[in-house]
């Protein structure tokens, strides 16, 4: 048998690799939409690459979260609690990234404002994933590359919220999501 920690490391590498690829391709798309140096064909290729890499990394996130949960007792460590919280945030942001690209379509890069917003979501999701990886690195190796930046958080303390308040928060956020999905007018694909 392979230990859950080993599977966690494997799936994390898959996730971070594909996510990094997606981020780089997205940033290049944004740059191309402003500078127009590479041509339409290259931009289309970058956009497709970013999209499918994002879908792949989205598939990896639940695997990473499950193997991570199986490889340690989160209730005994504030660092692991923070990992679980950031996992939820990362998954939400990354679903949003894939949803946005699917809704707006490949022509979204013709709208500079949309391009900036989409790239912003991609970078936010990736930063969250980088924080997760940084926490894992601190736990296993005692240090993180993030320390080079000087202001990288270590998440030694976790919020202490009761079960009842957590339930209220979950219900409120679920309500907000349902309102957005079923009440707000649906988005439209950007036409060229």
């Amino acid at each position, binding site marked *: 048998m392979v230990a859950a920690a080993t599977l966690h490391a494997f799936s994390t590498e898959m996730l971070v690799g594909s996510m990094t690829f997606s981020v780089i391709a997205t940033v290049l798309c944004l740059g191309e939409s402003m500078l127009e140096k590479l041509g339409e064909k290259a931009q289309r290729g970058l956009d497709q690459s970013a999209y499918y890499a994002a879908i792949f990394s989205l598939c990896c996130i639940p695997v990473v979260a499950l193997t991570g949960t199986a490889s340690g007792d*989160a*209730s*005994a*460590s*504030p660092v692991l*609690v923070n990992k*679980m*919280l950031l*996992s*939820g*945030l990362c*998954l*939400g*942001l990354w*679903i*949003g*990234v894939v*949803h*946005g690209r699917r*809704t*707006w379509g490949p022509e979204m890069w013709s709208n500079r*404002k*949309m391009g900036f*917003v989409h790239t912003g*979501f991609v970078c936010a999701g990736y930063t969250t994933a980088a924080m997760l990886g940084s926490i894992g690195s*601190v736990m296993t*190796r*005692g*240090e993180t590359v993030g320390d080079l930046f000087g202001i990288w958080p270590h998440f030694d303390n*976790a*919020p*202490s*919220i*009761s*079960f009842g308040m*957590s*339930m209220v*928060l*979950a219900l*409120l*956020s*679920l309500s*907000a*999501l349902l*309102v*957005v*999905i079923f*009440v*707000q*007018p*649906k*988005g*439209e*694909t*950007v036409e060229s």
Partner: protein
Amino acid sequence: MRRTLLLVTLLLLVLCVPPLSANPGGTGDGNRDAACGGSCHGDPGLSEPSSAVLTFSTDRDSAYVGGPISVTITVTEMELSSRGLVGVFLLSDTHGVADTPQDAGWTILSNGEGGATNYAETHALDAESGVTMTWSLLAPSSEGTYDFYAAVHHGGDGAARMKISDANNVTVGPVPDNLPQMLPWDAMTSRSLGEPTDLSMPVVNATAVALEYRIGEGPIATIEATQGADTWVATLPAALSDISLSYRVVMSNDEFTETTGWIAVSNEIEEYSADIFAVRLQSMALLFASLALCISIQRRMSRSPQKSLGEPEAALISADQTSMVVPTPSVEPVAMAPSLALDDPRRPVGWTDEQWLHYGPDHIAQNPGGGF
């Protein structure tokens, strides 16, 4: 050409990855054999020699069977990583298997770092002052000459490094008659903050037993122990903060006074505990909220400006609400009379403005041609 340059650059970047490094954050204290059973420090392909100077000393020339002795290892002049982490071993052999002092029959009362293990990690401020660790031991139950080795694992200059000292002999001799002795004992090396600790010490051949303790390297305080059925009992005062406390046992009778080595006490910080279901709910809340934020912004931005302009604010809600609107009776459009100029030449003489505006259209209709 550009592609070639790009590929060469990427390959160079791969080659630039430095051949680091074992466990820069350490692996924690523990009972370990020499080289941790072939860790990165012990792997000749990864490890490099250390320039450390290892100094071995004891608090007495020899020990009695079962008697106390303190062994001090000082490590200086080693390369240091930016963390300055150093792992020090007290070993009884260097074969890689069954190398701990316990394997040779010794009892470790304290490693000086708040534990009772043969390997402990600590941080060095600099290579010149180095690190010093003192183990408090009880000798084996059989006489003889025993070997001790000091070893160190550390990093520095981008490589894992290790060094093992030569053998140092310690003689364990016969117990003199009537020597006060500590029987095999699990010394207390950690306790909770704010709680005094009762220590039961299995001492034989003693007429008086005292517990000496100190904070850091401060003055020594003494507590007299009272004799119980089989043990001597003393109470160590509570620590109110995370201080560096150590204690030792002084056993005496008319002929001898025996003292154990200093035993360091670590403070157990209250363990963290979280409700895992609450954490999962919080994680889900973050997921839903961040997703709602993303979708909301995306949908709002993807609405075309024409549609947004043509809709009232309420139209942002897409539900069909026409059934809520109360129908109003339809009003037939009133045919508006064409406006009349006050200086119209068809205006009869003597009509006021009000008369002309009110009756003028009828007048014009009844008198086609102007009504003159």
